[in-house]
């Protein structure tokens, strides 16, 4: 097991106090904190070898280029890619998905084609496809959820429930061009069986994009084992800096895709009227890239690799089970999503909840978040950029606690105490 207590010493921000109380940071699904090693990698770059890459021949440029491309190799190995050519640096998950929608989508999706999403998607895996559908006349379909917040995969659609993946693939046949799904829900903590889904999707002749924003930071993710076609994720949710993310895709698909943005570095040669594109992955990295944060992400990957992703997952699994158990003792507290022991990987370290009675919120999540903040506890409140999902549960908002490698059982206890205090402040027994 991880020793979260000793891990905490690596994260300077965890020394901080908020409103006079020790910081209890439970907003990791929004962004994670950064270890000293990542902060050091960023300052090292700016202090010692800051330079533009791929062009300069001076020492600093050589060092910066080597570090940037080294970062690409580390990130690629982290997800078990076959080659660094498959790893495109972008700003974040959102940009990665937009890149696929704008480049692959415009070239391959036409009027009458179908893109299958689900009802649990983050806006970043919903709005880009809405834009593509509006531009092309393609149709969006949505996999529904069962009453535990799991995707309806193999089940036949029940009357009144959402549609299953099986049903949608059968109903739309060859018109289905892409299935794009979250690897793990940022609201429910549901871990989706993406490897099984990839098999089904490929049998139907479509491609699979996995939104790995929540799964890559918290689970061992192996692109070869999953056998997906695209994987998108963000650095800042996995101990890395903001402003750096990754699109992984099969090289044959990337080769066939037109560029997303034009500019420097993405070209082999340029004429006044036309240009020749650079090789992978540079074709998709126009302009000076985010060198510093790519290097910072590599330091985060080193840190996570040092802990071991199986250990990271096991720690969060245990903490989530503890949290679900402790939270059950808070009166009127409703938890959304699957049970801790959900198969096969359990529930991820995300727990969304409300204090609610007979369908009425007893305390609005924003009030809860403010009261908890005054106890030093950082949680998220709102629709978590998954408005259709939150509306699916007929509430205007949810409170959410989400865990990472540095969280402790005693922080869960602090959360529970603060929730009981919030009840007292609002005059609830």
């Amino acid at each position: 097991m991880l020793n979260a207590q000793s891990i905490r010493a690596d994260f300077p921000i965890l020394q901080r106090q908020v409103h006079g109380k020790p910081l209890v940071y439970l907003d990791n699904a929004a962004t994670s904190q950064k270890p000293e090693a990542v902060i050091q990698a960023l300052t090292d770059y700016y202090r010692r070898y800051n330079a533009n890459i791929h062009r300069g021949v001076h020492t600093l440029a050589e060092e910066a280029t080597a570090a940037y491309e080294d970062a690409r190799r580390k990130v690629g190995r982290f997800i078990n890619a076959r080659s660094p050519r498959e790893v495109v640096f972008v700003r974040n998950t959102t940009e990665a998905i937009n890149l696929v929608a704008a480049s692959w989508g415009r070239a391959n999706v036409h009027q009458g084609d179908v893109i299958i999403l689900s009802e649990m998607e983050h806006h970043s895996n919903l709005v880009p496809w809405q834009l593509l559908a509006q531009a092309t006349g393609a149709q969006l379909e949505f996999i529904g959820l069962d009453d535990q917040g799991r995707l309806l995969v193999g089940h036949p659609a029940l009357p009144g429930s959402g549609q299953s993946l099986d049903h949608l693939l059968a109903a739309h046949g060859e018109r289905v061009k892409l299935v794009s799904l979250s690897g793990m829900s940022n609201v429910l903590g549901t871990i989706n069986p993406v490897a099984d889904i990839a098999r089904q999707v490929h049998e139907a002749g479509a491609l699979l994009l996995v939104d790995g924003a929540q799964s890559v930071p918290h689970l061992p993710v192996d692109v070869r084992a999953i056998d997906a076609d695209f994987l998108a994720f963000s650095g800042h949710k996995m101990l890395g800096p903001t402003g750096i993310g990754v699109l992984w895709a099969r090289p044959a698909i990337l080769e066939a895709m037109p560029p997303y943005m034009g500019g420097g570095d993405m070209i082999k040669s340029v004429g006044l009227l036309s240009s020749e594109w650079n090789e992978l992955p540079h074709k998709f990295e126009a302009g000076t890239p985010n060198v510093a944060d790519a290097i910072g992400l590599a330091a985060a990957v080193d840190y996570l690799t040092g802990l071991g992703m199986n250990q990271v997952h096991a720690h969060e699994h245990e903490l989530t089970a503890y949290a679900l158990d402790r939270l059950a003792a808070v009166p009127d507290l409703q938890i959304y999503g699957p049970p801790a022991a959900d198969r096969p990987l359990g529930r991820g370290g995300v727990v969304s909840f409300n204090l609610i009675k007979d369908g009425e919120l007893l305390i609005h999540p924003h009030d809860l978040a403010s009261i908890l903040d005054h106890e030093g506890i950082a949680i998220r409140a709102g629709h978590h950029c998954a408005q259709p999902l939150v509306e699916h549960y007929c509430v205007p908002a949810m409170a959410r606690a989400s865990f990472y490698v540095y969280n402790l059982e005693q922080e869960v206890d602090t959360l529970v105490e603060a929730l009981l205090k919030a009840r007292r402040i609002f005059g609830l027994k």
Partner: protein
Amino acid sequence: MDDFYREEILEHYTHPHHYGTLAHPDISHEEQNPLCGDQVRFDIQLDDDQQTVQDVRFSGVGCAISKASASMLSDLIVGKKLDEIKALTKDDVMDELGLDLGPVRLKCALLPLKVVKAGVYGLSGDPDQPSDDDTQDEW
């Protein structure tokens, strides 16, 4: 901490003033805060002069801050001229609430004022309609 959600705020939240709707309002306006799902509607009844607020009701779902802010604002605008309401600022609302809020919760607190001002400006067909963020300082 306990004075953050001080008694007056919670009192307005649990027993809001002017809560409900009017059958025949002269002004009725509703807006949402997309970040938190707060939704506030104000109905305003004017005197015969069509310039003075005779009665007001508000409704909607929201957090304690937005509901208390709406309740206090409803007290503030009864008997006021429309021009006086147009002149209300963020500071007037924040003085009533007596809270020190960050930028995110500030949106909850100021949503009722935004609704009232948009309704009032909409009625008078004023060309100087408040911009979307009229209730916020630009800086």
